[in-house]
């Protein structure tokens, strides 16, 4: 039943050695709920999906569709099902998960426990805004949880600390088909970027930002706006795999600078509209399996914050700091978030969200640390799905509801059996 395993978060900076169960039947979950937290596909970057020296439950084999109401688009599905799989299976029938993060490997359970957001957050809100109900197997027994229940607020964005989500009923969103019409435009600088993001009326909007550009071009990038559509395009190519860890120079400053400049110019000056399979638009990196190995064996950090709209100057300072440090990889994203959603520890709130990857080189962790401090000062928050360096004090100040949350967790998990490495590091369930 238990397998001694060594595993890591997506960023591969933190690792864990522990015991994993991987049930293939939902019935097994009630006996496992008091043993350890559930894990999805471990697409969280830091230590949110790690239990070093303890037990955890891998949900990957519980991925069945249980019911679908084709009139209303209500899908009941086991929690280990990947959101990208739902998109592939249901888009041809005219339905998509209402909220999809940037990787299709993320599971329904991981989507709820991090209350993930997508490229449509400005209009559609977060994952929690599209849940009809879910089943929660807590150490204290099974509960059906609906929006508005106290357990709902503790479980969405709740880091798996209230129990194992076994299945959920999601309200899917209607789509025109399994294609995306995407308009791509160059954006010359940060101010323009923020303006364009504020004004965008597209359903899906995301900005790629060149984190190496400085001076006039600070914060330049490409704005992508997408709508679903239908038609015929060649089937997506099979994914490629990164077979080994890349050498250290692969993402060195000159390589990234050159790559970014070329990537920026790829889009013509006047912009363009292209048609893409949905996977290519929503999950551009998933085609390259194990791309995290490009960062070499030391792994990488991702910094992601959301800053209130009036804090554009801080965003500018951050970009300046990042480009000056010369540590950024080509993966940097800027989005506009709409109003926040339910969940004591949910990340999304109105403002600009910036996400940047840094190879784990000298100076990377301290840079992220400084950016975290700037976020706190500006009244923003960092995203716990990405974090691996924040301090307990910082995170508690960013999420003032944490005590309410911790009490709700303790009510269903008094033995604190569900604590993950992130929860331990940030002392989130230490209420005294």
């Amino acid at each position: 039943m238990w397998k001694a395993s060594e595993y890591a978060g997506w960023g591969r900076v933190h690792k864990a050695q522990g015991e994993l169960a991987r049930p293939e039947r939902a019935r097994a979950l009630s006996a496992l709920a008091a043993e350890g937290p559930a894990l999805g596909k471990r697409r969280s970057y830091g230590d949110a999906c790690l239990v070093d020296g303890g037990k955890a439950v891998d949900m990957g084999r519980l991925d069945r569709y249980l019911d679908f109401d084709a009139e209303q688009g209500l899908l009941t599905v086991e929690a280990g099902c990947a959101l990208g799989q739902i998109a592939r299976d249901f888009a041809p029938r005219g339905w998509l998960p209402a909220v999809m993060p940037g990787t299709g490997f993320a599971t329904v359970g991981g989507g709820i426990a991090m209350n993930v957001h997508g490229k449509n957050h400005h209009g559609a809100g977060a994952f929690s805004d599209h849940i009809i109900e879910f089943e929660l197997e807590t150490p204290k027994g099974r509960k059906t949880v609906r929006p508005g229940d106290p357990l709902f607020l503790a479980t969405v964005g709740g880091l798996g600390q209230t129990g194992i989500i076994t299945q959920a009923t999601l309200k899917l969103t209607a789509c025109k088909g399994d294609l995306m019409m995407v308009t791509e435009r160059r954006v010359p600088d940060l101010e323009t970027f923020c303006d364009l993001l504020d004004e965008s009326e597209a359903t899906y909007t995301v900005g790629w930002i060149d984190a190496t550009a400085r001076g006039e071009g600070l914060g330049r990038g490409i704005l992508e706006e997408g709508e679903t559509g239908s038609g015929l395009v060649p089937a997506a190519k099979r994914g490629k795999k990164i077979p080994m860890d890349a050498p250290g120079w692969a993402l060195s400053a000159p390589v990234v600078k050159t790559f970014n400049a070329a990537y920026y110019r790829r889009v013509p000056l006047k912009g363009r509209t292209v048609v893409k399979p949905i996977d290519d638009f929503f999950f551009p990196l998933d085609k390259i399996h194990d791309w995290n190995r490009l960062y070499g064996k030391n792994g990488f950090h991702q910094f992601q914050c959301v800053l209130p709209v009036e804090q554009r100057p801080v965003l500018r300072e951050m970009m300046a700091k990042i480009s000056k440090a010369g540590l950024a990889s080509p993966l940097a994203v800027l989005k506009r978030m709409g109003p926040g959603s339910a969940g004591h520890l949910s990340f999304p709130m109105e403002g600009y969200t910036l996400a940047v990857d840094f190879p784990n080189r000298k100076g990377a962790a301290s840079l992220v640390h400084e950016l975290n401090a700037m976020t706190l000062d500006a009244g923003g928050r960092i995203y716990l799905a990405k974090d691996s360096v924040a301090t307990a004090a910082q995170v508690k100040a960013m999420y003032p509801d944490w005590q309410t949350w911790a009490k709700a967790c303790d009510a269903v998990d008094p033995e604190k059996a569900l604590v993950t490495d992130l929860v331990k590091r940030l002392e989130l369930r230490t209420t005294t």
Partner: protein
Amino acid sequence: MMETWVILGATSSMARGLARALADRGAGLLLAGRDMADLEATAADCTLRGARLAEAVKFDARDPSTFGPILERLGKEDGSLNCACFVGSMPPQADIDADPSLIEGVITDSFTGPARFLTALAPMIEARQMGCIVGVGSVAGDRGRVGNYVYGSSKAGFHTYLSGLRNRLTRSGGHVVTVKPGFVDTAMTWGLEGMFLVAPPDAVAASILKAVEKERNIIYTPFFWRYIMMIIRSVPEPIFKKMSI
């Protein structure tokens, strides 16, 4: 061509993989096993993936009274009648050594129970002059080893049975595929020591479906196990008996 498949042992993740692949192409499915709640979930899943029909049916290899109703239900379907059998059990050899009465159960689950079911199905395939039977054996049946020789011998018996059944059904247009998996990443092997080259269950399911389409007789899956077993079978007994692999 309308097809209906009975999947025996449909709670196995390999079986689930095959059921999904069959559902994708619109087959009818009777998902047979002991855990009805789990089979119902797989049935719902297969229906939503495009199965023409997906029903959970009770099957216990140790209770032959469960066989008749399944065959009766199957007989109501038009087109080809098919069966894939994933049933098997592998208690630790040490448990069997301590309690030899466990042997009957292993043989019934992995060999005689399925054989009895398939023997009753054979005339239906003969009558329609078409249909395929997939029997999942194991590389463990290719040579008895100290670590699992009771399980291995049940699989060896099943292999021999399948070979004879193939010989019989080929005369009337039916076909039998013998599948010999190596190590597969399923509930049966989760956490066991000494596993290597472990294959994902969906890959095994895909190779089974391909073997059905190509009317292969005996497949090893993944394919390289054919060569591994060739070597293992060729070790002379005086040496083999002293080895612990």
